[in-house]
């Protein structure tokens, strides 16, 4: 009772204080005194040849504020923060740090000002140890021993546990991110930039990160938080600046708007969900995986151990998991890029084909879309028509070893039309398409064959919202038309949206397969961490 009382009192006090402050701020702003932003970008532009990545962007961050930078892929978020961190030089515009203009010519100068950055695809060195990774980014007077000593303190006060002498490649994505954060914190930053920090984390790890960020913000550190996950931005941030096609279109309080309203600002129009015409009625088994085990294929790979999986005609089966838990190995085993010794470990449409190669499996009616579109799903310097040969070689585009160019062009045109692929010229090289358009082409190339089984790895990775919606809709429609669709994805929202049944892969093992309605984000998160069987105790130890 006493606790509740004092809590209420404090709440009341802070509310009154905040009201008072905001009023004060109005007065102060007129006087232009200490309420000034920590950092202010004015009219920042960046031109790459024809492309205007940033077009006169303004951005102001106050001390202690958690400020969201929102926008679709290609909206110019990454370019803007690279400018702020001194990696990229702006073509025009001005940066003010505590009211005085500065030029940030390199990350070293950014760090000297007090700017720290946690990168999206991590700026770590796999073969080096944790302590070495931290020391290399600090100023010259940090020795390895000093880093080891301070690592303990920082780990303790922010709950960021790390072992100094482990090699980075042995660590999980969450641990890797901790290294980046600790690296910044050791420099006593005034502004911390985080680029899509939760894209590689489980829901539990993300919540843990938010607590750390709240704590830093309370200590007066400003945070620039880049994300396209709107719910977490609404949970965490006080201000949001929204970029679209390189321009800032709005600066809002994300807590006062719904996720839908913010999404509309990001995309420029309403984004619909995927519609499912009828509930999927699964029929016969099209793909069966029977206790499939596979040793690691590469130095830092993951071994698959006794995986059981069944996909029926007419359903979408989802496979969730954090990156690097055996997804690419599972895909390689299913597609036949890595055949197994046991032929009956994988059965496609009733035919055992575990030892068969990729083309044999295609002839059985299977189709595959790997994660990496440029270089794996498509040959970068080949034209789209030539790229149809990759998976259609046995079919209509070649005869007795010769390419039927006209048929290939016709096929490419058909794919381009039915999947709305936008191209810079007629029949361009694959590398000239944007990520979203190439992904539409690659998925379309497989779907146009009407496969009995389609296996897709990360169908919408790095694809803009419009293309992602089109791809998801096509996957659902293919299942409705009677194919079995297997989607391997790290995007949980995507799987909850399109999958009928789902399982989680963790360190090469697959969890039990359950209907999506029986999963919650929490239960998926526990499986992702591999702690589901330990009644969730271990999560607190994070």
């Amino acid at each position, binding site marked *: 009772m006493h606790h509740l009382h004092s809590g209420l009192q404090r709440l009341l006090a802070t509310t009154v204080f905040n009201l008072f402050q905001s009023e004060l701020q109005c007065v102060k702003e007129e006087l232009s005194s200490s309420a000034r932003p920590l950092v202010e970008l004015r009219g920042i532009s960046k031109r790459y040849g024809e492309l205007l990545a940033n077009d006169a962007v303004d951005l102001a961050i106050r001390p202690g504020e958690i400020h969201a930078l929102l926008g679709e892929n290609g909206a110019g978020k990454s370019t803007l923060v690279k400018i702020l961190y*001194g*990696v*990229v*030089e702006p073509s025009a515009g001005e940066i003010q740090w505590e009211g005085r203009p500065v030029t940030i010519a*390199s*990350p*070293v100068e*950014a*760090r000297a000002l007090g700017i720290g*950055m946690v*990168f999206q695809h*991590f*700026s*770590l*060195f*796999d*073969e*080096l140890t944790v302590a*070495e990774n931290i*020391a*290399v*980014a600090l100023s*010259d007077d940090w*020795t390895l021993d000093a880093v080891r000593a301070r690592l303990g303190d920082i780990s303790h006060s922010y709950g960021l546990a790390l072992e100094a002498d482990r090699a980075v490649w042995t660590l999980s994505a969450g641990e890797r991110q901790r290294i980046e954060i600790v690296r910044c914190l050791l420099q006593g930053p005034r502004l911390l930039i985080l680029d899509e920090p939760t894209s590689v984390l489980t829901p539990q790890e993300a919540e843990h990160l938010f607590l750390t960020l709240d704590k830093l913000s309370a200590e007066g550190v400003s945070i620039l938080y880049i994300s396209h996950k709107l719910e977490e931005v609404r949970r965490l941030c006080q201000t949001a600046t929204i970029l679209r096609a390189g321009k800032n279109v709005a600066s809002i309080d994300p807590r006062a708007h719904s996720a839908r309203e913010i999404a509309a600002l990001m995309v420029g129009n309403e984004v619909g969900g995927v519609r499912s015409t009828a509930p999927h009625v699964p029929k016969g088994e099209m793909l069966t995986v029977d206790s499939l085990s596979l040793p690691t294929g*590469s*130095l830092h790979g993951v071994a698959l151990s006794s995986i059981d999986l069944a996909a029926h005609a007419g359903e979408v089966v989802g496979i969730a998991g954090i990156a690097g838990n055996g997804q690419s190995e599972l895909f390689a085993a299913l597609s036949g890029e890595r055949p197994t010794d046991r032929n009956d470990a994988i059965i496609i449409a009733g035919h055992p084909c575990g030892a068969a190669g990729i083309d044999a499996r295609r002839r059985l009616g299977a189709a595959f879309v790997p994660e990496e579109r440029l270089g794996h799903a498509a040959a970068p310097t080949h034209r789209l028509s030539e790229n149809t040969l990759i998976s259609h070689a046995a079919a209509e585009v070649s005869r007795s070893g010769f390419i039927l160019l006209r048929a290939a062009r016709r096929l490419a045109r058909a794919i381009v039309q039915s999947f709305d692929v936008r191209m810079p010229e007629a029949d361009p090289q694959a590398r000239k398409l944007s990520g979203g358009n190439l992904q539409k082409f690659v998925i379309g190339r497989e779907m146009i064959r009407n496969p009995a089984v389609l296996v897709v790895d990360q169908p919408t990775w790095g694809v803009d919202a419009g293309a992602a919606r089109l791809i998801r809709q096509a996957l659902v429609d293919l299942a409705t038309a009677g194919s079995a669709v297997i989607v391997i994805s790290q995007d949980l929202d995507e799987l909850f949206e399109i999958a009928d049944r789902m399982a989680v892969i963790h360190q090469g093992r697959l969890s039990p397969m359950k209907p999506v309605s029986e999963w919650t984000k929490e239960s998926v998160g526990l499986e992702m961490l591999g702690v589901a069987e330990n009644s969730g105790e271990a999560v607190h130890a994070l």
Partner: protein
Amino acid sequence: MTTFEAILLTIVTASTPLLIASLGELVAERSGVLNLGLEGMMAMGASCSFAAAVTFDSTLMGVGAGILAGGFMAALFAVVVLGFAANQVGSGLAVTIFGLGLSGLIGAPFVGARRDPVAPLNIPGLVDIPFIGRLFFGQDLFVYGSIALTVAVGLYLGRARAGLVLRSIGENHASAHALGLPVLRTRFLAILFGGACAGLAGAYLSLVYTRFWSPGMTAGRGWIALALVVFAAWRPRWVLIGAYIFGAATVLQLHAQAAQFGVPSQLLSAVPYLATILALLLLSLRHGRAIGTPGSLGVPFVPDR
């Protein structure tokens, strides 16, 4: 002096140029640059040092000229692969061919000339110890220098901050650039160091090993030095061991030929090269991929500013 002792002494002489050249290449590769121009840089070092030594009648001038010649070829290579981000394999091969040709041109007037042997650095007292005295305490400065260089490179890579920066850049140049580490500058200096070492190794060949100049006298030692770096899994300690194993193989096949083993001499001459292939094969069988390969090795870097 027994025959056995003499063999041991020649092994040291055969191993030293391999060790020096490999250490330079190791530093360049640890920074992420594959320098296939090693053979050409060694050849340039050999001819320029011999020319300078004969002209000025000074071994010191010869050594200086060898290092400068290797460094000059390295600077040329660096401008092409760093400044223009050209393909490192193609550029390296071109430098080797160019270096072999140019060294022949520079060395042509000096064919037939001879230099006196470089005086060994006899350590008084110790050098008279029977059997091991000459081997350990009666070598020339190059040999002691090459051992000191191994220790220095090991300490630099393992302990020094600058070495950590160099390793990071070789491991992942994109990350290093994002953190503000000077990728191109570090690589430029690493290539120069590699070239200077190759030049020194070449100088050793013409001033100490043969004491005359003939075209093509490097005879593939640059390629062996390159293989040695892989064999050593990019670790200085293993380069030292590997250089002496390969040096021994080179010398022993000569003695085997002299002893007329009934094996064709061509086959025996091929022993060091076969050993290289075998070592690489064994390494790759054991690890699936050569352990310790710098992540960015051979990949051109273009900063996005």
